[in-house]
């Protein structure tokens, strides 16, 4: 396809990830610096090469403790970075750190951009604040949350559960089918020494676990962690000078075509995945059948079903049948999913963790959890609700 899409000028030049844990002794900024140092070393770049920083959603420690504790200013000051371009903000799609970095590099605003996502939700929970649940204090509620929190819909687990109930009603999907997402993630996590949960999980264990918000049970929900992930986006002209194999951005996009709402969409059970799929495949000659593996968002297991449909790996309403039995999505199946354990078992790195894992697999550097055979083309997706972004990454 013609080179009119600017992301094709960009590569992932380096990746880094701090320790990922349920409660770590290092604070958010320390974890971020850990991940940046590792990514610089991985790329063979020095900090003086870095001239851009990109993040999402920006620091919001006061509004949601642990959800996004580190600002660009914190990182810039800590590492004395000289920046030509920097950007972060919550009024953008979850994948915007990467999308914006690609635009900055392609337009010449910056040459090497650090993208970071840092979470300290596990430590915040230990102190009694749960960033994913709001409205439980005495303050009045304004903005979009006023349409959910006052009724007792405090958590995304309930918002997603309602849509999942509708999906099951319309398409006859079952918990046994949905459970394959969680069981598959865990079996991959057992091979990944960095995953948070590595004990075996059977479908029976899944079915017997406690319900959180019907039909979602404990294992349908991802796990809050402390940790930081860094992806460096660079111009493809520098690919030959890098220490590690550059991974190309073939296509990327994070659209918002539908209602920005959890209950007013034209179709209650599509969310934004289908729009992201449309945009992604309009920017490349590759087709879904060309994809070697997928790192699909699994903040809740149900979201993965919508991503399978939205990205065209199966038809509308067919995702539950697609994952039935688990063979098709297993590491030796036709479309391996969550090769590191996903957010369900490896931890809620909140989007960038899937890029980190896709790059490892495409380079053949995933160690014990490396997929067999040559893996050249990967899809990464981020988001639930109408937050949706998708990227297509290739190794050559």
């Amino acid at each position: 396809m013609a080179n009119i899409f600017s992301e094709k000028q960009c590569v992932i030049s380096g990746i880094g990830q701090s320790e990922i844990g349920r409660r770590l002794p290092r604070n958010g900024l320390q974890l971020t610096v850990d991940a940046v140092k590792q990514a610089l070393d991985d790329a063979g770049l020095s900090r003086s090469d870095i001239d851009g920083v990109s993040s999402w959603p920006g620091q919001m420690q006061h509004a949601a403790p642990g959800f996004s504790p580190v600002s660009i200013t914190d990182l810039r000051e800590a590492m004395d970075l000289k920046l030509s371009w920097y950007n972060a903000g919550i009024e953008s799609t979850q994948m915007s750190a990467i999308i914006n970095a690609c635009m900055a590099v392609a337009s010449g605003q910056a040459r090497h951009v650090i993208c970071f996502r840092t979470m300290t939700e596990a430590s915040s929970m230990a102190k009694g604040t749960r960033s994913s649940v709001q409205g439980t204090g005495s303050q009045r509620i304004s903005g979009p949350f006023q349409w959910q929190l006052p009724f007792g819909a405090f958590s995304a687990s309930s918002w997603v559960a309602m849509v999942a109930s509708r999906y099951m009603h319309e398409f006859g999907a079952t918990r046994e089918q949905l459970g394959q997402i969680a069981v598959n993630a865990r079996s991959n996590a057992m091979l990944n020494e960095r995953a948070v949960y590595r004990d075996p999980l059977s479908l029976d264990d899944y079915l017997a676990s406690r319900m959180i918000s019907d039909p979602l049970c404990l294992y349908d929900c991802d796990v809050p962690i402390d940790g930081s992930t860094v992806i460096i986006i660079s111009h493809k002209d520098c690919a030959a000078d890098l220490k590690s194999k550059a991974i190309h951005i073939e296509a990327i996009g994070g659209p918002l075509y539908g209602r920005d709402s959890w209950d007013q969409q034209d179709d209650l059970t599509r969310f934004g995945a289908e729009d992201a799929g449309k945009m992604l495949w309009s920017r490349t000659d590759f087709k879904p059948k060309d994809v070697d593996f997928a790192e699909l968002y699994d903040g809740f297991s149900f979201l993965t079903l919508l991503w399978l449909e939205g990205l065209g790996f199966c038809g509308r309403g067919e995702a539950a049948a697609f994952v039935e039995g688990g063979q098709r999505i297993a590491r030796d199946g036709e479309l391996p999913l969550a090769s590191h354990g996903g957010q369900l078992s490896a931890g809620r790195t909140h989007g960038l963790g899937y890029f980190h894992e896709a790059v490892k697999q495409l380079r053949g550097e995933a160690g014990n959890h490396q997929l067999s055979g040559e893996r050249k083309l990967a899809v990464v997706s981020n988001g639930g609700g109408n937050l949706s972004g998708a990227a297509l990454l290739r190794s050559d």
Partner: protein
Amino acid sequence: MTDTNALEKTVGPTPELDELNSFFWSSGADGQLRMQYCEDCQYWQHPPSVCCRKCLGEEITAKPMSGTGTVAAITVNRMPWMPGLKIPYLLVIIELDEQAGLRLTSAMPNAEPGSVSIGDRVKVFFEQREDVWMPFFELQ
């Protein structure tokens, strides 16, 4: 009509009233649900906004509704997210009779979990919470 005084009050935060949403949250004072309606497009919209999202006209009024609808989606929350919350409880998305796709996320505090299904017919009732009338639903 449910005698809500006889029932245990729900627990939850209260919406902050502003110039856009006040009509909606105080609508139950006279027992009626209201949403914005554009006479030109004959179109209902929610949440409230400054103009009709179809024609961009500003002739939108807070129009009384039947208060009836159908359960489009449902969950039983089992997590004690805040002190005083009586679990488990039913959360629903109601598709209102006035227009396909016009929905309201709400709760059914009087119904037992397991007693309500997608497709069930429901009607609104209100519970006063300070200066707000919370629109909840019950089986017709």
